[in-house]
């Protein structure tokens, strides 16, 4: 039976027999092994290929997917030691057992140094033969599985990396985002604790003078959170670009998320629309951390909450309400996820809202990019030496004169 090597690292090969190549010019060995392992051969667990010369052995190595080589040191033509060197360079996954005459310790040492896994001495002890070959097969199969697992893992990593890139491509990341506009500046940043994350920010122009923006944080981490986030972000945006008010956007998305939510996931979303002519913002908070409003000349203040609940928890009408705030030229708004305020230091203390508020109070907020950078640096400094536990999202908008 020919073995098929699959390119798919996830392919299951459990039912393929282990293939053992036996090279000995003495036909006795073939008899011994086929007798010793007759049960395994009958059950299709082991498959023996027997050859009488080194050349034939090389031929079979090329043609078959060999797991274990059992070879006599003395062979006509290419001898056992040469075969071992070939294995080492060309078939590193094959495990080998060499057979030498009793007491020939020097040759055995050389063979072991060439990478032989074990050895047998002639005259061959029937029990020893069984134990040695079985043990070597187990080793070879374990090694093969380890390589397969590693390839599988590498494939998963590649997929995760692709997922990461797709996810990041959903989040606007080119700044300045609207170089032709002087009425406002916007800057956002995402840092994920794992390959993919559940945080997002989003923005786009709805029409000539309305900027849609949103920030969100899905419960949990990794792929499940990322999927939930991607779905939510798209639903909210789809309604927003149609011109639906923020409370309707969240309400509609929430209804759909609540229909099928077997795993009780939820996502907090804050979304708003800035009128770039007047500075007015109309917004709705679906359970998210309240953004800071930065007033030119006075300190940061938390925005008033609206009616709202994290999306995906309970369905129903009138769960979400609207809020209004007006930005004057020079004012701004900072949206963030709790990855900022719940970043921890080595002692387990939280970064906390207060530290963020204090930092913003000292910030001139001349441009959103610098302010976001300052916050991230402070978080990094605060949590130095601690592995980032949660995703971080930040979005800052500064309103200029129209």
């Amino acid at each position: 039976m020919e073995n098929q090597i699959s390119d798919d690292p996830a392919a299951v090969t459990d039912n393929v027999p282990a293939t053992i190549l036996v090279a000995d010019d003495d036909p006795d060995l073939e008899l011994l092994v086929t007798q010793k392992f007759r049960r395994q051969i009958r059950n299709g667990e082991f498959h023996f290929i027997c050859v009488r010369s080194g050349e034939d052995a090389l031929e079979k190595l090329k043609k078959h997917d060999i797991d274990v080589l059992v070879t006599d040191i003395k062979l006509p033509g290419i001898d056992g030691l040469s075969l071992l060197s070939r294995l080492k360079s060309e078939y590193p996954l094959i495990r080998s057992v060499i057979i030498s005459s009793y007491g020939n310790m020097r040759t055995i040492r050389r063979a072991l140094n060439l990478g032989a896994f074990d050895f047998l001495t002639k005259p061959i002890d029937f029990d020893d033969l069984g134990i040695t070959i079985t043990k070597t097969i187990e080793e070879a199969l374990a090694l093969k599985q380890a390589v397969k697992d590693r390839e599988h893992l590498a494939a998963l990593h590649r997929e995760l990396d692709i997922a990461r890139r797709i996810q990041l491509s959903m989040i606007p990341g080119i700044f300045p985002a609207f170089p032709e506009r002087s009425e406002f500046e916007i800057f956002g940043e995402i840092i994920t604790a794992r390959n993919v994350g559940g945080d997002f920010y989003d923005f786009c122009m709805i029409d000539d003078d309305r900027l849609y923006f949103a920030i969100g944080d899905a419960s949990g981490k990794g792929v499940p959170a990322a999927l939930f986030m991607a779905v939510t972000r798209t639903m909210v945006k789809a309604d927003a670009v149609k011109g639906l008010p923020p409370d309707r956007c969240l309400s509609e998305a929430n209804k759909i998320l609540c229909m099928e939510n077997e795993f009780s996931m939820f996502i907090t979303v804050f979304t708003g629309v800035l009128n770039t002519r007047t500075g007015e913002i109309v917004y709705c908070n679906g359970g998210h951390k309240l953004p800071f409003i930065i007033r030119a000349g006075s300190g940061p203040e938390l925005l008033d909450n609206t009616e709202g609940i994290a999306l995906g928890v309970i369905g129903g009408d009138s769960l979400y309400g609207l809020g209004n705030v007006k930005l004057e030229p020079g004012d701004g708004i900072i949206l963030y996820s709790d990855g900022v305020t719940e970043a921890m230091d080595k002692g387990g203390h939280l970064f906390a809202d207060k530290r963020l508020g204090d930092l913003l109070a000292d910030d001139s907020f001349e441009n959103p990019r610098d302010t976001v950078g300052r916050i991230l640096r402070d978080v990094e400094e605060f949590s130095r030496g601690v592995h980032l536990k949660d995703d971080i999202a930040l979005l800052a908008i500064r309103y200029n004169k129209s």
Partner: protein
Amino acid sequence: MNMKVIREDDELTHIKLSGRVDLEGIGDLDLEFTRHTVTRRKPTLVDISDVDYIASIGLRMLVTAAKVLNKFGARLVLLNPHPDVEDVLRTAGFDKVMPIEHDYERALETLKTAA
């Protein structure tokens, strides 16, 4: 996180959680919590006065239990959260699903109201 069952009878489940209710803190207690709350389907009082931090996975554990209990007409009331924890709960709007009380007697009253 630590979990202590204070009372478990036909009228009430009373549980006290303490410590950090985050991924590391919850560990296997998630199942234990579900077993004592959801599967019993009784009005449930969860004392969280000694919870000093709650992460989204902890919120999910509580909300999931509250939603199932509500379905069976029973409430889940949270007792005495630390101001920071209460802020997290209220900001997320979770007090709509599980009322927050600061007084044991009042909590018992709230538990009697229909979910």
